[in-house]
């Protein structure tokens, strides 16, 4: 028993550093995903012609390919045309682009679920379509999008582990490193798993609290978005 | 004296701290039509659901043709085959067409040959006037048609008694008539029925006895003449006149709206 505890204590500092990198990657990717995803969702929802087509193609291509492939294209592929990225920026960009397509779809779902009467009423008081989207539709949609968006947050934290494939020293990669020194794969992986479970439960708790705080009566969307 | 089909003795049911049924007794004879009326929340649905054990009563006994139904001993699925039930909100199986809805009990429960089951299902649907709708899915039927399919589904099992829980209260007024007509035919044909309904016209024409259920007990019971025109209790009189008023004012509003 003591032996296991001592082992855990000996590897914990390393895993902790890895966890911080994982969280850093997730935060960066989510933010990048938001910055790209929101305009793309507006382009797909309200855009016309070529703009809409580009948005649709972007979303479908990203969602139709594995994240690892996107990651290796960016990290191993781009140098072929002279774009060389460090591991961490490459990971954040790949994860962020991936997330942006999913976030765009969440936003679109939320926008479409807002009653068409809202737009009509906004236009009836003389708003332009642009104003109506910015002042009436988006503020409502952003609230509605929180539950699926928090799912994306959980997904992202889990999926940052693929960054280990390009040797970013995040949680999973540190676990693998420790395994190669200690030759105790199952024990190390067990503790890595425990850390993921704890962190994700904490994140879910925090998100729930935030959701409860900003909820408006009669304005909920189900959390279990499968 | 006619044969007893159903006997309920001193039935009690509590939900949490509130006692919904406080000792209900009732006997129904073969071919008899009993209409149950009473204010909302007095346990009419609970009573019907206890009869076929969709809900378990806390105490009291139920006899079907003098056979006591005992949970654990009696095969409830057998009992339920003999008791038809029609629900307020139809509960048709949404993934099955009308004729499949009617035949599934025959095939899966009674193990009837599929072809025979279809023939019987067709006959039952014809009986409720839906021979042209047999291949429609529930979503493609009006409320009145749905309820008639539900009646056919229950009838197909050749039940000894039919229970109706407010079969017309989810229907638009213009659709109520077609369902009541089917139920009247059924009553005329000698089916034993317990009907929870506030359609007083139906009660007057078809009921042998009316039960006024209030606060979880049978407050008054008697022939339609007695309950409508000569009730023993003031409460019964008040309730009947309240319902009559509701109905007539509802109808007036409608004609005013037109």
């Amino acid at each position, binding site marked *: 028993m003591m032996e296991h505890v001592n082992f855990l204590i000996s590897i914990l500092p390393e895993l902790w550093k890895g966890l911080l990198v994982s969280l850093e990657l997730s935060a960066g990717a989510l933010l990048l995903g938001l910055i790209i995803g929101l305009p793309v969702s507006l382009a797909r929802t309200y855009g016309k012609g070529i703009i809409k087509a580009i948005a649709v193609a972007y979303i479908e*291509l990203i969602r*139709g*390919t*594995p*994240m*690892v*492939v*996107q990651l*290796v*294209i960016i990290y*191993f*592929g*781009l140098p*072929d*045309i002279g774009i060389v990225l460090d591991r961490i920026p490459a990971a954040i960009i790949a994860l962020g682009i991936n997330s942006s397509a999913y976030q765009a779809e969440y936003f679109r779902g939320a926008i479409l679920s807002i009653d068409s009467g809202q737009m009509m009423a906004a236009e009836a008081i003389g708003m332009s379509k642009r104003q109506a989207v910015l002042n009436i539709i988006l503020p409502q949609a952003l609230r509605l999008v929180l539950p699926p968006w928090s799912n994306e947050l*959980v997904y992202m934290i*889990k*999926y940052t*582990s*693929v960054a*280990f*494939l390009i040797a970013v020293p995040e949680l*999973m990669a540190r676990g693998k490193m420790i395994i190669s020194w200690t030759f105790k*794969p*199952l024990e190390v*992986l*067990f503790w*890595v*798993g425990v850390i*993921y*479970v704890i962190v*994700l439960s904490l994140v879910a708790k925090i998100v729930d609290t935030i959701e409860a705080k900003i909820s408006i009566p009669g304005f909920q969307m189900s959390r*279990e978005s*499968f | 004296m006619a044969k007893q089909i159903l006997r309920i003795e001193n039935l009690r049911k509590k939900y949490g701290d509130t006692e919904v049924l406080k000792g209900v007794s009732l006997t129904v004879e073969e071919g008899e039509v009993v209409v149950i009326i009473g204010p909302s929340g007095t346990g009419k649905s609970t009573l019907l659901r206890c009869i*076929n054990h*969709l809900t378990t009563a806390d105490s009291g006994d139920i006899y079907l043709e003098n056979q006591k139904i005992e949970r654990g001993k009696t095969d409830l*699925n*057998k*009992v*339920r085959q003999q*008791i*038809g039930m029609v*629900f307020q*909100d139809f*509960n*048709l*199986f*949404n*993934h099955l067409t009308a004729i499949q809805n009617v035949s*599934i*009990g025959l095939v*899966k*429960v009674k193990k009837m040959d599929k072809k025979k089951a279809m023939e019987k299902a067709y006959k039952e649907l014809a009986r409720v006037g839906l021979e042209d709708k047999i291949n429609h*899915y529930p*979503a*493609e039927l009006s409320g009145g048609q749905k309820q008639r399919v*539900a009646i056919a*589904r*229950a009838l197909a*099992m050749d039940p000894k008694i039919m229970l109706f829980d407010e079969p017309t209260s989810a229907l638009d007024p213009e659709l109520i008539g077609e369902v009541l007509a089917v139920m009247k035919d059924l009553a005329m044909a000698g089916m034993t029925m317990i009907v929870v309904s506030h359609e007083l016209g139906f009660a007057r024409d078809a009921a042998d006895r009316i039960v006024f259920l209030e606060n979880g007990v049978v407050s008054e019971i008697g022939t339609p003449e007695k309950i409508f025109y000569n009730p023993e209790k003031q409460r019964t009189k008040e309730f009947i006149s309240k319902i009559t008023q509701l109905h007539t004012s509802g109808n007036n509003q409608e004609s005013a709206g037109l």
Partner: protein
Amino acid sequence: MGINEHTWKVISAIPYLLKGVGMTLKITFLALIFGAFFGLLLALARVYGGSISRRFAIVYSRIIRSLPLLVILFMLYYLASEILDLSPFLAVVLALAVHTSAYQSEIFRGSIQSISKGQMEAALALGMSKFQCVLYIILPQALRRALPYWSNEAAIVLKDSALAYVLGIAELMRRGEYVVARSSQSALLTYLIIGIIYFILTSVLTRSLLYAEKKLRIPC
């Protein structure tokens, strides 16, 4: 001119890459089947089970859904090589199946619970046993309702199967790595081609499931 030579090398490797598609599909298919089976059992345990099986299903789903696929994959891989005697192929299939079963259990649970209580009652009132109710009345409706979410999950499993390459299984992604390793300046093109192949696969998969959905649709 140099670029052309590299390009040509990659293009001539396409048949070699395509051979990995079979393996990718095999992994995906097996994982989906096992995952659907476990997922459905878990969902049934969750909705109709006693308190122990229900609690197990909840905890299983919670924990598995918090673990990255890679963690599950390596756990099973080491378990497979140290204790059980499984091939890396089976370890991959099992890891994907375990991972997706948790998500599928949520899908099936949601769809079972979305079928109104009246359906069960009406079936009981006809004299069906609870087992018959579930089999003939609840599941036919619930599984149809689950299909759109399920096909989404199927696409996820297909894409996740790319991670099998870390265990050295010669599926699409792994073969891509070989091609890249053999010639310089070929990574971008190779991985783009791999991406396109995956895109075609997921499109075909989701299209065919969409078709199945339409075929099975009930008016509602």
